[in-house]
């Protein structure tokens, strides 16, 4: 483990940015934080987390897949790929680091999505342990320890210092480059912090949330649950929950006519949208109840069924904070799971 004084953090950022684009959470005018590219003068945010998840770095909201040149009856496919830049994402929380594993299960399963795969290869994750979880946090439900974030390098921040521990070869290599700015240290300060976080975790209001009622093989048991109607009755059908979610990975592929060619791009899609499954001759999810159910059944039943029991939620709490009508996965789990803690 290595450490450095927080006074020198900008030197660390500058060193990292020498070799790769560095992104980190930065405060915005509206009080929220967002990942921004670091440049001299950029101030690292103290916020617990960003509104948008870091999934953008590997699975951008919009991404060109290819272009077509169309001349008469002839078509030419043109390469528009650009995902070959090395980059570092700094300050990723444990929940969001875990979301990359979940996205990996989708995009790195054969046939590998090479756009995503390429970005994963070019990206280095420096995670950051949480010190002040929010009431909306429930990562523990999914077995995530916010004091032990994964990533290529794990980091812990105290009042005065920042501690680094490399977990992968890529991380080791980067940490070596920072050797002049950091010094070797023991893990006593980090352990003390871990203990503090563990104590806070026991006070979180959602600490009792359980996944017992969910998992693979529960489709027939839960699909026709009468509670879906009530839970979805006020859903606006917007895509906020899916777009702020670090694990939602559905996408659409669309063509955009630029006037002198066609760009085929991929963009995030939402199962909450009315046209998500609409075909020329019909739609198999006609009402918001079916769309709403799909989102949660996917995260809590279908995904674990196909992925060794892994749920497609990391408990980051973004949907709790952002849903316009405050309906979210926690309410669904308590209602459908029947373990409402009172």
């Amino acid at each position, binding site marked *: 483990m290595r450490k450095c004084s927080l006074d020198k953090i900008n030197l660390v950022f500058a060193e990292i940015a020498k070799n790769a684009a560095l992104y980190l959470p930065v405060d915005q005018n509206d009080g929220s934080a967002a990942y921004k590219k670091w440049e001299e003068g950029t101030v690292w945010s103290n916020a617990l987390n960003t509104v948008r998840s870091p999934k953008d770095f590997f699975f951008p909201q919009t991404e060109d897949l290819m272009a077509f040149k169309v001349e008469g009856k002839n078509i030419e496919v043109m390469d528009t790929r650009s995902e070959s830049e090395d980059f570092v994402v700094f300050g990723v929380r444990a929940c969001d680091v875990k979301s990359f594993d979940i996205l990996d299960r989708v995009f790195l399963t054969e046939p590998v999505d090479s756009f995503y795969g390429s970005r994963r290869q070019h990206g280095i994750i420096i995670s950051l342990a949480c010190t002040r979880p929010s009431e909306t946090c429930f990562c523990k439900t999914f077995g995530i320890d916010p004091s032990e974030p994964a990533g290529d390098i794990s980091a812990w921040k105290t009042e005065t210092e920042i501690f680094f521990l490399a977990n992968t070869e890529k991380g080791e290599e980067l940490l070596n480059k920072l050797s002049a700015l950091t010094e070797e240290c023991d893990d006593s300060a980090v352990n003390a912090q871990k203990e503090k976080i563990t104590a806070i975790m026991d006070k979180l209001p959602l600490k009792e949330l359980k996944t017992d009622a969910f998992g693979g093989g529960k489709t027939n048991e839960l*699909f026709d649950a009468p509670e879906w109607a009530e839970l979805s009755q006020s859903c606006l059908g917007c895509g906020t929950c899916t777009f702020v979610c670090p694990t939602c990975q559905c*996408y659409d592929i*669309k063509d955009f006519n630029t006037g002198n060619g066609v760009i085929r791009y991929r963009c995030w899609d939402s199962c909450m949208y009315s046209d998500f499954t609409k075909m020329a001759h019909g739609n198999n999810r006609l009402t918001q109840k079916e769309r709403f159910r799909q989102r949660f059944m996917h995260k809590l039943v279908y995904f674990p069924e196909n992925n060794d029991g892994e749920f497609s939620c990391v408990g980051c709490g973004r949907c709790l904070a952002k849903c316009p009508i405050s309906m979210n996965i926690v309410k669904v789990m308590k209602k459908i799971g029947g373990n409402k803690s009172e």
Partner: protein
Amino acid sequence: MNNMTETLIPKIGVITDVRIDTPDIKTFRVVTPDGKKAFDHRPGQCAMLSVPGVGEAMFSITSSPTNEDYMEFSIKKCGCVTDWLHQAEPGQQITIRGPYGKPFPVDDVFAGKDLLFIAGGVGLAPLRSVINYCRHYRDRYGKIDIVYGSRSKDDLLDYQEIIEEWSTDAGVNVHLTIDNPQEGWDGHVGFVPNYVKELGFDTNKVAVLCGPPIMIKFTLDGLCSIGFDKTDIYTTLELRMKCGVGKCGRCNVGAKYVCKDGPVFRCDELDELPAEY
């Protein structure tokens, strides 16, 4: 990284022949620009065809894998991409990627069995590939029955081929029907599910169903009522797809993705899935 093969990036295909089958179905013959088959496939598999600027859509490959020269797609005009294709002329390039999906188990489950194919309307398209595959390897299979119905005589897909080739094969029985009486038609009149029951097949065979959802539902009920077991009945599903490889997240029925776990399903497998297709 740019040299990684990417399934979402298609090949160029050339439409070399357009056959008008019915008032709203055309069959397109597709090869690569150098005149070859774009890729090998198995009976029942699909391909993504696209018209740049219009869109991409999944179609079943209608030609048999045993055809080594080209692929065929029988396409009904019913949306943006299909409207555009219906206006295309030979020489038109499109894009093609695939093959996608799980094929019919022609080499294991079907081998040595009597086969019953039941199709309605454009539902013959996905079955044509497997029917012609089984005709090609005729000695590997038992008796073949084909029940095919459409709205009218004009709406019967592949009519020439059915009459001239399928009907004349030894051990292949073709039973055609149309919904309503029509001048110049002396064959059977009536809906497919009823016709199947009237024909009353022995149940020691594998049945394959494809057609409009309502036809599938009633035919399936009919087959079960005359003693078929659902483990011997196969069908294919169709839902909206974008990627074709189980990642874009829209063609799932329960935990199964139609694009990669289907489109071919055994009917007892469908019973395990939620009724959302």
